[in-house]
C-alpha cells in the first residue's frame, strides 16, 4: 500500500488511514535520524525544489534536511533572487522548474490555494509548506507525531488550540487532522480572531482562556502575528497577553502533565511565558526534531516510481 496521491496540498483531503500511514512511516525515519550516518539512499537521483515565496527558516531547513537525508538533490528557490521579481507568474515559475526535471516541489506561498493550483498545473508532486491562511499539512502531521511519541492516544484526546485561529494555517490543518483521528478539539481566542462558523469543523469555541483550558491534555499555542496589531483585531499586545497568554498559573487549569506545543517562532512573554516554553511540559523542540522525520516520510511516500 502506498499513499495514493500525487500531492500533499492539505490534511482535508487525507483519510484517517492515510494520516496514520504517514505517521507510522515517520516512526521508521525517526530511527534513521538518530543514527550516526543519518542518510539513506531511498531518493537517490530525485530532485526536490523548495519554492518559498514567504520567509521561513524552520520549515525550509527542515524540508531541505529531510530531502538530503534521503539522498535527493535539493534546490532552494526564493522570490527575492529569482525571475519572480521580473513579473513571472507562479505557474510559469513552476513549469520552468519542472522543465529541469524536478520530481517534487515544496511550496510556501502567501495565497490560500496556491499549492492546489500548482498541483493541477504541473506533473511534479507538490507539497504544501503553508499557503496563506489555508493549510500547513506537514506541521499538523509533525504535531500528531509528537503527541503519539509522547504515548498519547489521539482518540478522545482533549486539545485546546489557542490564539489567532482565523489567520492560522497551522490551526486549520491541526483541526482537520485531530478531528479525523477522533480527538476532542476546542479553539480558544478573541472573537476577532475566530473564523466564522468554526464550529462546523467539529470543534468547540471558547472566548475565555481559563474556561478553554479546563481538563485539556494538550495546549497548542499559536503565534500572535504581531504585524496584525493596528488592524483592530486586538487593542494592545499587553492586553492580548494578559487575556490569552499562557502562564504558569493558567497551565495549572489544564490536566496535570498536560503538554504545551507551539509551531514557532515563539513570541516569548506574549502568547507564552518563557518558563513554560523552556519548562518540562513544553515539547516545542521535539516538534522541530520530529519535523524532519515526518517530512522524510512525506517525501518518501510521494516519490513512488512511474512503473
Amino acid at each position, binding site marked *: 500500500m*502506498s499513499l495514493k496521491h500525487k500531492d500533499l496540498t492539505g490534511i482535508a483531503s487525507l483519510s484517517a488511514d492515510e494520516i496514520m500511514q504517514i505517521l507510522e512511516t515517520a516512526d521508521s525515519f525517526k*530511527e534513521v535520524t538518530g543514527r550516526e550516518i543519518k542518510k539513506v539512499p531511498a531518493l537517490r537521483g530525485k530532485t526536490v525544489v523548495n519554492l518559498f515565496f514567504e520567509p521561513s527558516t524552520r520549515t525550509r531547513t527542515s524540508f531541505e534536511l529531510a530531502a538530503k537525508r534521503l539522498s535527493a538533490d535539493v534546490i532552494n528557490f526564493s522570490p527575492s533572487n529569482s525571475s519572480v521579481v521580473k513579473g513571472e507568474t507562479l505557474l510559469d515559475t513552476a513549469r520552468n522548474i519542472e522543465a529541469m526535471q524536478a520530481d517534487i516541489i515544496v511550496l510556501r506561498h502567501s495565497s490560500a490555494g496556491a499549492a492546489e493550483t500548482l498541483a493541477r498545473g504541473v506533473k511534479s508532486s507538490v507539497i504544501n509548506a503553508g499557503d496563506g491562511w489555508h493549510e500547513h499539512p506537514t506541521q499538523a502531521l509533525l504535531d500528531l507525531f509528537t503527541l503519539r511519541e509522547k504515548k498519547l492516544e489521539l482518540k478522545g484526546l482533549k486539545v485546546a488550540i489557542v490564539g489567532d485561529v482565523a489567520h492560522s494555517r497551522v490551526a486549520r490543518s491541526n483541526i482537520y487532522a485531530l478531528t479525523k483521528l477522533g480527538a476532542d478539539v476546542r479553539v480558544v481566542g478573541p472573537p476577532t480572531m475566530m473564523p466564522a462558523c468554526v464550529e462546523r469543523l467539529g470543534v468547540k469555541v471558547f472566548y475565555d482562556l481559563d474556561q478553554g483550558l479546563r481538563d485539556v491534555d494538550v495546549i497548542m499555542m499559536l503565534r500572535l502575528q504581531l504585524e496584525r496589531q493596528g488592524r483592530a483585531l486586538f487593542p494592545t499586545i499587553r492586553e492580548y497577553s494578559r487575556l490569552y497568554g499562557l502562564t504558569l498559573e493558567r497551565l495549572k487549569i489544564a490536566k496535570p502533565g498536560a503538554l504545551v506545543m507551539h509551531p514557532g517562532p515563539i513570541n516569548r512573554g506574549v502568547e507564552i511565558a518563557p518558563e513554560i516554553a523552556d519548562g518540562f511540559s513544553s515539547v516545542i523542540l521535539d516538534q522541530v526534531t520530529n519535523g524532519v522525520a515526518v517530512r522524510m516520510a512525506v517525501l518518501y511516500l510521494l*516519490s513512488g516510481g512511474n512503473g
Partner: protein
Amino acid sequence: MDASEVARAVTRIAHEILERNKGTQNLALVGIRTGGVYLAHRLVKRMLEIEHVQVPSGDLDITLYRDDLSIRKDQPILRKTTIPFDISDFKIVLVDDVFFTGRTIRAAMDSLMDLGRPAEIQLAVLVDRGHRQLPIRANYIGKNVPTSRDEIVQVFLEEEGEDDRVVILKDSKEPPGGAP
C-alpha cells in the same frame, strides 16, 4: 519442508555458526524483515541453549536501500530497523528466510555499512532457491531448493500465526527481476 525439518535446519545452522566462529565472541545476528527477524530470534534462542550465551541481535529493514524504489509504482511499506548495539567490530550474521536473486542481501549489506563497520558479514538462509543476479553466496543454508524463475517460494512461520513450513507455489505474477 515441514515443521520438524525447519526446526532441524535452524538447529544445524546454529551449530555451524558457533563452529565457524569458534563460539560467540563478538558474534551478533541481524534478521532481515520480516521472515529473517523470526529466524534470527530462533537462532539466538538455540545458541543460548547450546552455549548458554545470549548473542546480541537486531532487526533490519532494507526498504530504503532497495534498488527498485524508482521503478515501483507504489512505495513499499517502511518498517523499523532496530539494532540496539553498535555493530562496529562485530562479526554479523545476516539472517533471511529465502535466498533468491541476492538483491536483498546487497541492500542489507549496504545498510549495515551505513550503521557501522562490522568486522565481518556472514549470511545464513533457511532456503536457497538459486537464480542469483549478483555475486553473493550464503555461508549457512538450511536447504537448497531447486526452483524455476517463475515459481514462488513461501516460508510460513509460527510467529506469523502459521504452522512452520516451506512451500513452492507455481505461476508467480512477479515480473522477472522484480522482487529483490
